[in-house]
């Protein structure tokens, strides 16, 4: 499947990141990197700090210590919209779509940062604004085709089943043409068939668009099948990092999942 894919240099480097909310320590000196075209999974038991890690990467949380470097540029306190402008898009653990809007409109919002005309020009919908809208729509249609959701193009998101909403959220993230895609439990709550579909889409995105992907997932078979390398967190610390096979046989990981007396 991944024969022709070239994993390149690191695109994201996390170095000694620590994050605490008052007395609660979410992350403690975590370091790892994500390479170009790689699928990188973050796993760990509940409360291990996985979502916090994603939030640090796209600038929702600012770590008290440590640095994050994206495409070789060290940055400390970026805002989420700056991160998005740099090429980081994400989906959420609890779907965050506009429920009353159609699938098409939801995905169009993913193009928001790329739109140059202002709202007055758009209101008149003439000249450059019209051309721009058509261009964006073409991009969005390509994503709709890619994720095979043509049949729900005009359906309000709130009317869709959960599995499809997850796919729409992925579509919105892809519409931003990201270089790094953060997926927070893209397969939670799905049945087997939906999981297989989603896995295929994740692999296709990675393969055909060359997007680097950071993935949080609880389904171990999915993680082991999809990812190139896995980082394991437990109580905010990194306890293992390596290929799926290495991680599977790591003593610390087995203990964290099966539980040992602390």
């Amino acid at each position, binding site marked *: *499947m991944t024969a*022709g894919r070239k994993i390149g240099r690191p695109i994201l480097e996390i170095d000694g990141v620590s994050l605490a909310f008052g007395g609660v320590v979410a992350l403690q000196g975590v370091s790892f990197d994500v390479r170009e075209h790689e699928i990188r999974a973050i796993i760990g038991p509940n409360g291990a700090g996985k979502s916090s890690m994603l939030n640090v990467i796209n600038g929702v949380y600012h770590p008290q210590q440590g640095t994050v470097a994206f495409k070789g540029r060290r940055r400390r306190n970026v805002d989420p919209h700056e991160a998005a402008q740099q090429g980081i898009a994400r989906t959420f653990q609890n779907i965050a779509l506009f429920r009353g809007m159609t699938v098409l409109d939801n995905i169009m919002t993913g193009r928001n940062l790329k739109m140059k005309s202002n709202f007055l020009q758009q209101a008149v919908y003439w000249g450059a604004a019209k051309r721009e809208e058509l261009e964006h729509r*073409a991009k969005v*249609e*390509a994503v709709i085709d*890619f994720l*095979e959701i*043509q049949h729900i193009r005009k359906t309000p998101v709130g009317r869709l089943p959960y599995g499809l909403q997850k796919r729409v959220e992925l579509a919105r993230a892809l519409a931003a043409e990201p270089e790094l895609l953060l997926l927070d439990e893209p397969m939670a709550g799905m049945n087997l*068939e939906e999981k297989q579909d989603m896995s295929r889409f994740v692999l296709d995105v990675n*393969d055909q668009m060359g997007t680097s992907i950071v993935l949080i997932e609880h389904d171990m078979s999915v993680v082991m099948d999809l990812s190139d390398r896995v980082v394991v967190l437990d109580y905010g610390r990194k306890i293992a990092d390596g290929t799926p096979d290495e991680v599977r046989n790591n003593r610390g990981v087995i203990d964290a999942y099966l539980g040992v007396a602390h």
Partner: protein
Amino acid sequence: MTEQPDTFPRLLLHQARLRPARPAFREKDLGIWKTWSWAQVADEVRILACGLAAQGFQRGDRLAVIGDNRPRLYWAMMAAQALGGVPVPLYQDAVAAEMAFVLQDADIGFAVVEDQEQVDKLLEVLPQCPRLKRICFDDPRGLRHYGQAELTAFEDLQAAGRGFAQHNPDFFADELGKGRPSDVAVILYTSGTTGQPKGVSQTHAAMIQTARVLVAFDGFVEADEILCYLPMAWVGDFLYSYAQMHIAGFCLNCPESPDTVMTDLREIGPTYYFGPPRVYESILTQVMIRIEDAGWLKRRLFHAFMAVAKRVGIGILEGKPGIPLRDRLLYRLGEILVYGPLKNVLGMSRIRVAYTGGEAIGPDLFDFYRSIGINLKQLYGMTETCVTVCMHASGDVKLETVGPPMPGVEVRIADTGEVLVRSPGLMKEYHKRPDATREAIDAQGFFHTGDAGYFDSGGHLKIIDRAKDVGKLADGTLFAPKYLENKLKFFPYVKEAVCFGQGRDKVCAFINIDTAAIGNWAERRNLPYTGYADLASQPAVLDLIRECVEKANGDLAQDSTLANSQIRRFLVLHKELEADDGELTRTRKVRRRHIADKYAVLIDALYSDKTSCYVETQMRFEDGRSGTVSADLQIVEAKTFGAAAARKAA
């Protein structure tokens, strides 16, 4: 006027000369309808034919075509015919093993397929099909890293074709000149309710002559529009879409994806529509569900005006005299408020002619469409006869019949009740099956259809059932299982039914509920459920189905010959009947014998006095794995009616 073109490739060039700029194909891609004119299509086909020739495609070679309805796949069929080859369209949802049989049987060397899914299936069976040398794919998605030497991208085939055409400018015209009308134009595999599928070889002459008759029959012109959404491997699509476009010059519209057909239908607004009864049924089911979910005003309006339509709609459609002015005005108001908008939503506003066939259609279903002004007609025929044995003419439609024989078609009823047909559209032969051909076509050239039927007083043919399925109950009364099943299947809650009674003292039935319709019904009643099996076992659902069965029994009681075949006991199956489990054919007809063998335990229970029965069944999931499902099924007794009592009640 000179001689009429007599092969499909000549017809293609003829249309390209006659109406070069008219649309021939449309396809929705990336949200936009793209159009190809006849001239463009002729050019695409020439390039494609040259590309195939460059790859070594020879006169008489066979080309498999597999995928959803896509312009490029239709062009591939045209290109193969232009080279004197034979296209063999395959059912796109067949599993690899089923494809292997056809690929071997038809000696297929070349294939043009839609996407990765089909490529994977062909590569899987490649070792069993050594003749298969070339696989061309339309959609390259996911195929980037496939290194197999057999694979070619569609664009590469076109490029090769352009090169070849430059070096051999006369090649295409020469090849076209060599074609004869008696050549085989297509091999269509019948799904077959029993045994292995058989390839039906149809010549250019048979298909073209039949298509000419059909075009004249309903007066099709270049301005007609058709949406081709039925499998390309099915004779109906080949005849109604492909063959007729070549004669009438109308445009084929290809849907964006199989899931978007309803939307595409609405955007295109076809004038000519074909569907098996189940398609009309599922459309009606969706309408009914949405109406039940609508606000009270809409619901009241809908039901009030549907009652008007039921009373006078069909009479108005057929232009019958004697309809009171008040009803005419009410109907017109209904057209504005209900029927018009409804037809618009269904994409049926512009329909001039709609056909159904392949199976009997429920009377209420048939009347529903006709009463809202859609000229729905029935036809009868099979792959072996280019369909077109009998058809309703506009204005002469009876719901119980399939119409009188078509011009040029001779129909005879054998002593056994079997329908025999002789026509210009009769197949040349079953491919490589002289034994089966001899069995099917007798010495006088009549084809034995295997259907039982008779002519009514108006000269219309009435088909009751498969000749071998029409049976008798133990007491000698007529037992026509399909007739009963269709009666049950008309209820929106019943998806599939299988009736038993041959040689027995009473009729019993298996029923599959319609998950969508009953799920919606359950939601409105706040009944929680997890899936099909759970729904199927709920007492409230069983009661609902019992009411349906009893209503059907009430109807049957009205007809003295059928009163005895009322359904006494039934059960709701714990799993849906599936083609993947061999219970339905690929065209979703029930395989009654196979089901009877597989569920013998259940049948025994139905004919005993047990009230429940435990069963365990192997089933295949959509991802190809298999598992077992088990359940304890309740057997339900249904009320039956005496003939006299029913008459009083009615």
